């Protein structure tokens, strides 16, 4: 067993080791960022259970793995291996990453309008580093915990989108992020950077999937800037391996009159934590954050939301739902902070959980911190089971117990799925959840006693 000290030393040494070989090591601004992130790592230390934001989320198991940081794809795939993973019936700009590394041969960015950048961070650092030099670290700010520092210490590849002023990208950008573990567990750390300049508009669809069932640790970060009047629709489907550890920090900043619409679906992973930090920094900015997670035995799904209203007249609507079964565990920690100047804020946050088993467990903590006096805010959380009267009603109409349970669960999930405007995405998620529910059959038989 590794002590945190040993694990820390190992992370530190391996990152120090790879830094000189990373793309752009010769660029002072980038080498400096990476070096200072290493210092942050030492300074911050690993997260402790006594820290409020890690209270319900143990990293002990993660520390037990000998992780090998990788900066290469470590696998070669054929078109036929991944063809079925792209969304059906949707024209998109396709971009593939394997273990965090851009794979141009299997991407298709041919239809991109001139002047729009959609591609790999690594390529941009090599050929035209002005944009990353300007924006990397801008939305994320200083590292908040060791894993964020680790990511920044090894920035090398990830998705980049740079949309110039008033450009509207018709087709969605579809990112396929494939993880392929190996015998020795790998650590990969993608770093995404999305900048929508004033008045521009785009849809970004990210899908995280795994080929194989091995262990790996995805430690990713995304920085998103939605400038004045710009609009980003951001959809994410997380279907990591049942053995995977997954941590991803999203840092989004919104300027005046911008729109950010997030729909996140977390289905996989043994240990999966998503941190969503949203700063509404320009008047009239609106955000809608929708989330849906399913969690079964041997799974922990953790959502940490940090929504900050700093200026007047912004609005955020946040609704997350969780479906738990078996010994599934979930953590929802969502906070809205309304600062003193942020008058006329409208902010709502709700988390609802449906427990299909008595052994499932959720810790939910919605929080509201308001320093302004003229605001409309609400927050709430519920944890409940299927209503026996609803099950009875369906069964009395001839629908068997398992189908009845599935219909009610899909109804629960449907309220989030309906919000998702890209049909192929909600279809894929809906089907995945139905499959997950169908696999529960043996447990349902004993549902009343369990």
């Amino acid at each position: 067993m590794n002590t945190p000290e040993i694990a820390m030393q190992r992370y530190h040494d391996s990152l120090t080791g790879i830094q000189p070989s990373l793309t752009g090591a010769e660029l002072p601004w980038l080498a400096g960022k990476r070096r200072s992130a290493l210092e942050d790592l030492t300074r911050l230390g690993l997260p402790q259970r006594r820290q409020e934001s890690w209270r319900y989320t143990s990293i002990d198991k993660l520390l037990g793995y000998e992780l090998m940081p990788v900066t290469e794809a470590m696998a070669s795939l054929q078109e036929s291996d991944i063809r079925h993973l792209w969304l059906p019936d949707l024209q998109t700009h396709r971009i593939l990453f394997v273990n965090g590394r851009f794979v141009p041969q299997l991407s298709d960015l041919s239809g991109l309008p001139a002047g729009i950048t959609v591609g790999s961070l690594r390529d941009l650092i090599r050929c035209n580093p002005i944009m990353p030099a300007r924006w990397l670290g801008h939305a994320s700010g200083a590292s908040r915990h060791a894993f964020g520092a680790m990511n920044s210490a090894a920035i090398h590849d990830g998705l980049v989108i740079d949309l110039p002023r008033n450009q509207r990208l018709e087709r969605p950008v579809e990112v396929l992020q494939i993880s392929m573990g190996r015998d020795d567990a790998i650590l990969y750390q993608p770093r995404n950077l999305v900048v929508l300049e004033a008045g521009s508009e785009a849809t970004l669809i990210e899908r995280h999937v795994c080929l194989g069932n091995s262990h790996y640790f995805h430690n990713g970060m995304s920085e998103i800037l939605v400038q004045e009047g710009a609009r980003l629709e951001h959809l994410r489907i997380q279907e990591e391996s049942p053995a995977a550890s997954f941590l991803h920090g999203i840092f989004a900043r919104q300027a005046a009159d911008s729109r950010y619409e997030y729909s996140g679906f977390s289905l996989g992973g043994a240990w999966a934590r998503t941190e969503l930090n949203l700063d509404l920094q320009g008047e009239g900015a609106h955000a809608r954050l929708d989330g849906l997670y399913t969690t079964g035995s041997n799974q922990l799904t953790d959502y940490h939301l940090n929504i900050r209203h700093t200026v007047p007249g912004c609005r955020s609507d946040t609704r997350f739902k969780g479906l738990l079964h078996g010994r599934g565990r979930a953590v929802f920690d969502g906070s809205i902070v309304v600062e003193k100047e942020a008058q006329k804020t409208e902010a709502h946050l709700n988390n609802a959980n449906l427990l299909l088993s008595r052994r499932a467990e959720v810790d939910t903590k919605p929080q509201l911190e308001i320093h302004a006096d003229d605001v409309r805010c609400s927050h709430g959380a519920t944890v409940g089971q299927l209503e026996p009267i609803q099950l009875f009603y369906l069964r009395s109409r001839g629908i068997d117990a398992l189908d009845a349970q599935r219909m009610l669960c899909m109804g629960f999930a449907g309220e989030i799925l309906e919000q998702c405007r890209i049909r192929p995405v909600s279809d894929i998620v809906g089907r995945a959840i139905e499959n997950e529910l169908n696999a529960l059959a043996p447990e349902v038989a004993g549902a009343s006693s369990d």
Partner: protein
Amino acid sequence: MLNIENLHASVDNKPILNGIDLQIRAGEVHAIMGPNGSGKSTLAHVLAGREGYTVTDGQVLFEGEDLLGLETEERAHRGVFLAMQYPVELPGVNNAAFLKASLNSVRTARGEAALDAPAFLKLARDRIALVGMQDRFLKRNVNAGFSGGEKKRNEILQMALLEPKLAILDETDSGLDIDALRIVADGVNALRNPGRAIIIVTHYQRLLDYIQPDRVHVLANGRIACSGDGTLAQELEEKGYGWLNEESAA
């Protein structure tokens, strides 16, 4: 068709049905009346198989089969249908999908082929018109945000689709406007045939004016206090339930 003998049932260990005897032959319509809390809905739920309603004594045979030994959905497959006094809201569950799943489960159990989407829609539209609803109710979620009367009509729509052998209507007439009352009555009368039986739980004579029951029973304290023909309902309308106690005391 339905044979209830000495039925005792309790809810949360509280005895509510205290020995009910009732025989209904195919083709008959029976009305059950009685004061609030006398056990009418409890009887309906016991017949439909609701969990938590424990039968402590007695038996129920439906077409010769032990009804109480069947799961809730199996009873529906045999042709038992309960229109609930308080229809349940199912947020997020589409009404059309619900009706189709329900109809197909019952059809499959009856050995009929499941209907595909177009065939179902055609039938559903037809029955919707029959109960005076609009097609848009198919797109909504089951009973969610329906008015009281709309929920009751949705129950009748289900009955019209499933064509049950034994329909139990628990106060389907409460909360209905005059037009809707007629629709419920027409729905029941349309269903009436020599192969079917219908139980109507009601507080009011008015529905019975349209339907003309073969027998009327008065439930009091979990027992059938008295039974008679259609005139009993009129008598109750005039005299209320007070005289029942006097009579049983005498």
